[in-house]
């Protein structure tokens, strides 16, 4: 059993890595202008060349794919952390309104900068998103102390999300500017238009948060048995909870700042990954969720831009189609488990 378990872990990681490589190659080659895999390889490893194919790959598809990879991973890990924090299997940055809160703050800062005409560094956007995410997280925390049932927590999160979205729409409507189109596109969730500078920034932030999350995997595993037991095992509950909030907000904020709100990835991927690995061990599931989220978002982004090409879907639309059924499946599974005990 011990043996078959570690075999399962190796198998899981192999599958995810292979999928990731495959999807990455696909998203570099498939698109409005078809580029062969050989050409893609030449561009990737062959150094400078000025033709249009290599420029498309280097300046458009590569950063976009990397954004999907990094942000998809970040979003899934944020979801896993939130599920652990609230001890609620259908918690996630999107349903809890955290993404919407981040979006509201980013939209405000964007509109303000458009009006005042100052240059927006992506760091400022991340900071704004982080502030918005934390604000929503704190609101949710106030609710979570008062509601007993896990569904009520989710409902309050969804409501907060609606309020934030309404405020965002309001702000967007009254700040008319040519650039608002751009803002509108972003507010529906998209990886398009990512620059290499953005990729660098999101990679740094995500790497930082990922290291933090992996280092928290030991207390998270204790916390899975409940707060009282975690405390008895030596977890310092208060700092642990604060770190968990900060990390999950930072990850969710990073995603929202660069790609807008993306739905259901945070809930669906950790569950799919737990099923694949037949485990909930944070030390395995945190890196596996990252890989799973990368695969999921790369795949969804590929579909979003190719399905009705040249018309592009928002990536959130595609993630919802695949993610929402997982949420329903999780709830049904929980119900089944409850009825058997």
């Amino acid at each position: 059993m011990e043996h078959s378990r570690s075999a399962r872990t190796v198998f899981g990681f192999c599958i995810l890595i292979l999928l990731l490589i495959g999807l990455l190659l696909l998203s570099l080659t498939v698109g409005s202008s078809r580029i062969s895999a050989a050409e893609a390889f030449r561009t990737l490893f062959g150094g400078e060349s000025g033709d249009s194919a290599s420029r498309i790959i280097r300046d458009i598809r590569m950063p976009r794919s990397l954004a999907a990879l990094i942000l998809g991973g970040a979003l899934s890990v944020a979801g896993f952390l939130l599920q652990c924090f609230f001890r609620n299997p259908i918690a996630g940055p999107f349903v809890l309104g955290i993404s919407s809160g981040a979006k509201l703050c980013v939209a405000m800062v964007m509109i303000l900068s458009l009006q005042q005409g100052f240059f927006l560094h992506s760091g400022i956007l991340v900071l704004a998103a982080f502030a918005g995410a934390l604000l929503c997280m704190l609101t949710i925390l106030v609710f979570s102390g008062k509601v007993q049932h896990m569904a009520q927590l989710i409902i309050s999160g969804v409501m907060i999300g609606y309020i934030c979205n309404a405020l965002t729409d309001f702000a967007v409507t009254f700040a008319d500017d040519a650039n608002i189109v751009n803002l509108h596109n972003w507010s529906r969730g998209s990886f398009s238009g990512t620059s290499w500078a953005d990729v660098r920034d999101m990679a740094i932030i995500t790497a930082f948060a990922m290291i933090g999350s992996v280092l928290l995997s030991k207390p998270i595993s204790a916390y899975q048995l409940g707060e009282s037991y975690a405390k008895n095992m030596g977890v310092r509950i208060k700092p642990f909870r604060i770190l968990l909030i900060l990390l999950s907000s930072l990850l969710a904020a990073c995603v929202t700042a660069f790609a807008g709100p993306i739905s259901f990835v945070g809930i669906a991927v950790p569950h799919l990954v737990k099923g694949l690995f037949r485990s909930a061990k944070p030390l395995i599931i945190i890196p596996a969720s990252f890989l799973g989220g990368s695969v999921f978002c790369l795949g969804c982004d590929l579909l979003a831009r190719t399905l009705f090409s040249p018309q592009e879907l928002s990536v959130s639309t595609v993630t919802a189609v695949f993610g929402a059924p997982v949420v329903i499946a999780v709830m049904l599974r929980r119900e089944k488990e409850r009825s058997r005990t």
Partner: protein
Amino acid sequence: MNTDHILLEAKSFSAGYRKQIVVDDISFTLHAGEVLTLIGPNGAGKSTVLKTIANQIDLISGDAVICGKSVQEQTEKELARQISVLLTDRITAERMSCFDVAAAGRYPYTGLLGMLSEQDKQIVQDALKMVGADDLADASFSWISDGQRQSVMLARAIAQEPKVLLLDEPTSYLDISRKLDFLCLLRKLARERGIAVIQSLHELDLAQRFSDKLLCIRDGKAQRFGTPDIIFSGDYITELYGIRNGRYDPLYGTAEPSAYTGQPQVFVIGGGGTAIPVYRKLYRAGIPFATGVIHENDLDYPAAKALAADLITAPSFEPIPEDAFRSACEIMMQCETVICTLEAFGTMNHANQKLRNLAEQINKLQTDIKKQPS
């Protein structure tokens, strides 16, 4: 095993939630290898006392000292190596095997990422074996029975290698066989590893049999602290729990309801434990009855004392005195029916045979006691 030193000491502490005192003036000492059981009515504060010792609730005044150091002065890690707990919280361990759950007990000993060493794994295996759950190691924790879960949670607590083991109503959901297994195991842990066990129990009979010391809690205060023979004497338990509708018999370890008072309708001639089923039937039917003559050391005596409206007794080890026989006759005459559960009589209860013959003469003797009363 050094069993002399004090592992746990409560120094007149009070504790509660949000500065509101729930338990007050709690004092006791617990040595290595001892089992201390907290008893008392629901809501008296037993869990609060336990949670305070486990440092889950803040002390308001006084002190709780584990291994010579106040719980509040110890770091989480220090404390985790000294005390492990089994609580009433229902845990949802999603996709965790029983081994994983038990292995959580190694938390205070593992490194930064919580990887288990070979030695850690061995300790977890041994703990599972000790509670008889080694065959469940690979089973999913959410799929096993409540009783098995409790065993696995005990294995987790053992794997934590504590000096003090703290359990809140650990046997509540177990069947009687598992209750015994569980408590025997706690005794074994105390005896062989010198662990000090502190627990709360609702099963008074088991508390009496398995504890070295008892702490009686009522209305948030420690009323008494002592050995089972001191606590389980007289009517103290009845008083502790405020039993109004009956009485707890410490000798037999059970509670009996109060008797129906009123004019006895049935007279039961009993002894040697034969009359208890009849007493119970009459009690259930709500019929007031008298019974006699019962020796004070007779098996029937406690039930008779609790349930009979009228009881005629004889002193232990003596033949039934004449006056007891006479008052039994008097009461029997006023009853409509007489039931005799005895088939043989001896020197000491010869008078009961006379009672039976008398009942037969006056045609009150119910011969077929299996049919009657219903």
